[in-house]
């Protein structure tokens, strides 16, 4: 196969780009590829390649140039741009700003749906229950049902104590 730029040399670099439902193929010889910056790895950000073009700008914009570093592992914004991966689980908190926009481009949603470890599901349901009880309490007070409010208040206190107890993550 001949290079599609110079139409002389043998094509050894093959690029396939799919934009929407259109597929575009480029077959280049090494020389033309180099002159177009195709095989220059610094010309492409790995994050861009992995996560779709624009991903790294998205992250960069979110933190406006400041060298944010993960306190847990020392991973920085620039590292993410280079690697397209995070340094440690804590990075998800450190770089949370702008992360949602990034996640939106690659996933169905930005909230986990599915399996939850047992250690978390317990806390999860307790928290949900607490929220429900607090709503009920507000309603009871509004309806001036103080007897019910007192019961609810005790229940909430109990639940809160259990949630803050050591061992409950």
């Amino acid at each position: 196969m001949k290079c599609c730029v110079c139409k002389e040399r043998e094509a050894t670099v093959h690029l396939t780009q799919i934009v929407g439902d259109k597929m575009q193929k480029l077959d280049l010889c090494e020389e033309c590829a180099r002159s177009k910056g195709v095989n220059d790895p610094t010309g492409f950000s790995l994050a861009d390649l992995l996560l779709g073009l624009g991903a790294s700008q998205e992250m960069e914009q979110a933190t406006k140039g400041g060298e944010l570093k993960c306190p847990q592992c020392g991973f920085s914004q620039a590292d993410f741009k280079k690697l397209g991966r995070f340094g440690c689980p804590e990075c998800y908190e450190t770089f949370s700003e702008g992360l949602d926009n990034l996640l939106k481009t690659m996933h169905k949603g930005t909230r986990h749906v599915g399996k939850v470890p047992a250690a978390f599901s317990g806390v999860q349901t307790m928290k949900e229950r607490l929220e429900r009880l607090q709503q009920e309490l507000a309603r009871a007070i509004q309806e001036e049902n103080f007897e019910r409010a007192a019961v609810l208040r005790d229940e909430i206190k109990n639940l809160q104590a259990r949630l803050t107890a050591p061992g409950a993550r």
Partner: protein
Amino acid sequence: MKDFLAPASEVARRTGPQDRIVLSSRVRLARNLRGFSFPGWAKKPERVQVYERVAAAVTSLPSLQGCFCDTLDRLSTLEKQLLVERHLISREHAAKSTGSGVVLNREETFCLMINEEDHLRMQSLRPGLQFREAWAELDALDTELESRLEYAFHRRLGYLTACPTNVGTGIRVSAMLHLPGLVLTEQINGVVQSVNKLGLAVRGLYGEGTEALGNVFQVSNQMTLGESEQTILEKLDKVLRQIIELEENARATLIEKNPKMVYNHIGRAYGILANAHIIASKEAMNMLSLMRLGVDLGMFPGVDRSLTDELFLLIQPGHLQLLHQEKLQAEERDILRADLIRNRLKTVSRPGPPLPSTGPGG
């Protein structure tokens, strides 16, 4: 490790539903430990520590007694190559050494990569279309493991992974498909595009960025956040059943509209395989794919699909090397590969027109 793996002949005889088109089903989960850097960022001592924790937890599971567990620096290049050719570990993982490891059960239905891109990449494999079974086994193992290891889990984002493309469920559901009909009828690009539109990825034989050698394609989900495991599994299952139908239709159309073209392809493939003295793995795989199609169509009476499937595995560089003592060069491999195939096809007669009794199914 070499002795732990089942012989290729045994692997080729494993059968499952729809295995005429679906070679294998796989479910993979990505998990990480809280408080440790991801493998790509962690220093060696930290990786070793993670390896030790994970290996201890995994080998203590009752369901994994008698499994193989070791670090990659203790495996030879050849052994790692064998694991790659059997799709048990990734090429990236094979390139790693100290602080990374692999756990594999006897049946080769469960394989865990320790410190690949994530601390744990565990997968469940089944022949044919068996997503539900693969998921059930993996889900149970994962649940057992979560009481022995503290997973990095985020209330809103789910299981945290090194790459944000895997965050959430950390699940990757994939199947390996043999689609010669869609390739010969030139419908494959259209199918790939519509599958892409559904948010699923189509890749070649060895995953990301590889060629579809031997008309083998890998279809998998890409999104892991915002959809439950069940939803993803069901979606894949539905799409695969559609692809199977399209492939069966393509084969039927070919036989009906253009039988000579099909017989020509299969006859030539047989001719090359039965007579070649030098053959590269790429050509061999493509020819074996056509021969497999011939077997499916009933053009090789008395020949079982396991013949082509075993050869498909045996002709890979690592498996070929395994049959020989001395270190083989590429040119020598091409000769030995041709010898092996010719030898196996000695008892196989030339293909004839399809027997009328074979239709879609099994």
